[in-house]
């Protein structure tokens, strides 16, 4: 049984149609999420495309189309985490690459930032991944608390505490640095 047959049985549109529509509607927002998490547009685009390929492969397994966006968001977050872990492993393996990696990720996007934005972004990068994810999803992309919780695989309460702690930490870091 192919993907589309399975999808039709589940009441979903064909995989290529459904995934393409979803990609067109949400890819830009998800790439922005990736850019903030990774500091690198190319890597962010790769992560988002991988997430939608994964969604395409698993389309027939979705029980409800509403879950498709949540699946894509969660996959993007997973992809970002994997990319960050790979980056850390690479840096540990080759200490000389640390400076190169830091430079590489800053060239395209960060160099264009003002001093103020660069300072905030540096503080943002120092946050634990989960706090940063919660902040981006809730405060920047305007994703609901419930959907943020689903995408991150945590409870609504943890979304709240993570955003609250993130803002408190940012406030402290920015105050310390000013």
């Amino acid at each position, binding site marked *: *049984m*192919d*993907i589309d*047959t399975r999808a039709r049985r589940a009441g979903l549109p*064909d995989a*290529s149609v459904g*995934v*393409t529509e979803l*990609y067109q509607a949400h*890819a*830009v927002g998800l*790439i*922005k999420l990736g*850019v*903030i998490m990774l500091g690198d*547009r190319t890597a*962010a685009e790769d992560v988002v*495309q991988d997430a939608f*390929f994964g969604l*395409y492969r*698993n389309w*027939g*397994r979705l029980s409800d189309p509403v879950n498709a966006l949540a699946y894509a968001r969660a996959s993007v977050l*997973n992809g970002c*985490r*994997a990319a960050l872990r790979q980056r850390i492993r690479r840096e540990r393996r080759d200490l000389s690459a640390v400076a190169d990696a830091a430079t590489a990720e800053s060239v395209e*996007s960060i160099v264009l*930032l*003002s001093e*103020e*934005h660069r300072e*905030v*972004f540096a503080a*943002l990068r120092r946050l*634990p*991944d*989960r*706090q940063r994810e919660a*902040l*981006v999803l809730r*405060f*920047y992309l305007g994703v609901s608390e*419930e*959907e943020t*919780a689903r995408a991150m*695989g*945590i*409870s609504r*309460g*943890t979304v709240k*505490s*993570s955003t*609250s*702690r993130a*803002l*408190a*930490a940012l*406030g*402290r870091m*920015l105050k310390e640095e000013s």
Partner: protein
Amino acid sequence: MSTVADRTRAAMDAITIQVDSAPPLPLPPPLAWAPRASRRRWRAPGPRRRWGPWLAPLAAAAAVIALAVSLVAVRGTPGGHELVPAVSPAGAAVSFPDYYLTFNQPVSDETIPVGLELRSTLTGKTLSTLQPPRGLSFAGITGAADDRTFVADAHRDPYGAFNSGGRSRTWYLVRVTGTGSHARLTMTKLPVPATPVGTEILAIALSPDGTKLAVGTAPWTADTTNAKQALTVYSVATGAVLRTWTTPPGRANWAIMSGGEGGADPNTGVAWVGNHSLAFARAAEIAGASPYEPAVRVLDISRPDGDLLSSSRPTTLVPTGEPGGDQSTPFGCDPSWRVNVLITGDGTSFVCGGYGTSGARLPQSLCKPGTAWNTVAFAGFSLTTGKETFLSGYRTTCQGLAVVAYAVWVNATGSKVIGWMHFANSIPGKFGVFSNGSFRPLPIPVPGNWYQWDDGSLLYQVAW
């Protein structure tokens, strides 16, 4: 909105300003449905014997009878939490559980079924591993007081606890056989009913004697207008529902505060007080209290089914520090962990990690010279009087958000706490046994799991 939020949003706008389009998504043509080979194991053709429906309850009952016999020794100690002494390399005898259970992969990996690992508390060495039943992935673990009996729950793919939200759970009794380096894990399917699809697990807790399983649930839904929380107690031996209490419809009436840190099912959302009561924390039900100050409620499980709140009674209001790490209060539990309930084995105290300005005589941990002294510690608060019953930790010059402490195990009296303490980014954290001013380091559980560093999700990923 605060200035920090405004500045953050502006910076995010600035770094993503050039992202106004996405590259094309070249999808391959539809492929024949081909599940990944790793998820399907080859089985010899031929008829399958259907042992499962009647063998599982029998096996579970046999296992529970064995468990009841083995737990006789545990009942001899208060609360059953004082276990076999282990000897540290330095020669000082310290009492803590020999083993703990944990997951065997990062929670976010959805390609491999999550198994379980039995590890030595003292050495951190993996003693035994246990793969989940075919097609399933473990997502929750909780332990009895004998250090040899656990209950685990599992869900279908996609694998990884990170993907477990809203999925049906099936339940397994996991036991430790043998001792020392010969300790091994065994698994028996429990007759406890599977949770329906669309259920969020708020709490799992195995009673100290291993005979009852408490499960807190809520609908996995965005619309919580009519949603109820439920707390159900099952018989481990028969799977029968012994009691069920619910909250009135609507999120505002919910009682249990916990949720899935890092995806694993919360095993500290409710806690047993002995073998006949359950404790959970509920926020701000006392007028004038901060929303971060939980009232610990205790529920006698002999109470009939009914309303969760009216069936339980508030015991003590737990003092908390301010969110964000402000340490201006005398001593308070870290509000980030206020949803997690840890009770001493003798059932007398609520235990937490936190900070404050307490002047208690404690060892010092210097962060920056010349700044104010604070306390980072584990504390107990009497469930009867609310008064502090013990305090174990450090006086430190560190302060701010980086100061963190949370506990994962406590003995009968609170004289020994296993927990994590973090003072500042520049100082290595401490994980181990904190006991009346002394500290005995232990290997950090799940060191390969990056998630443990993030907001303490270690809490739900280990079971002692």
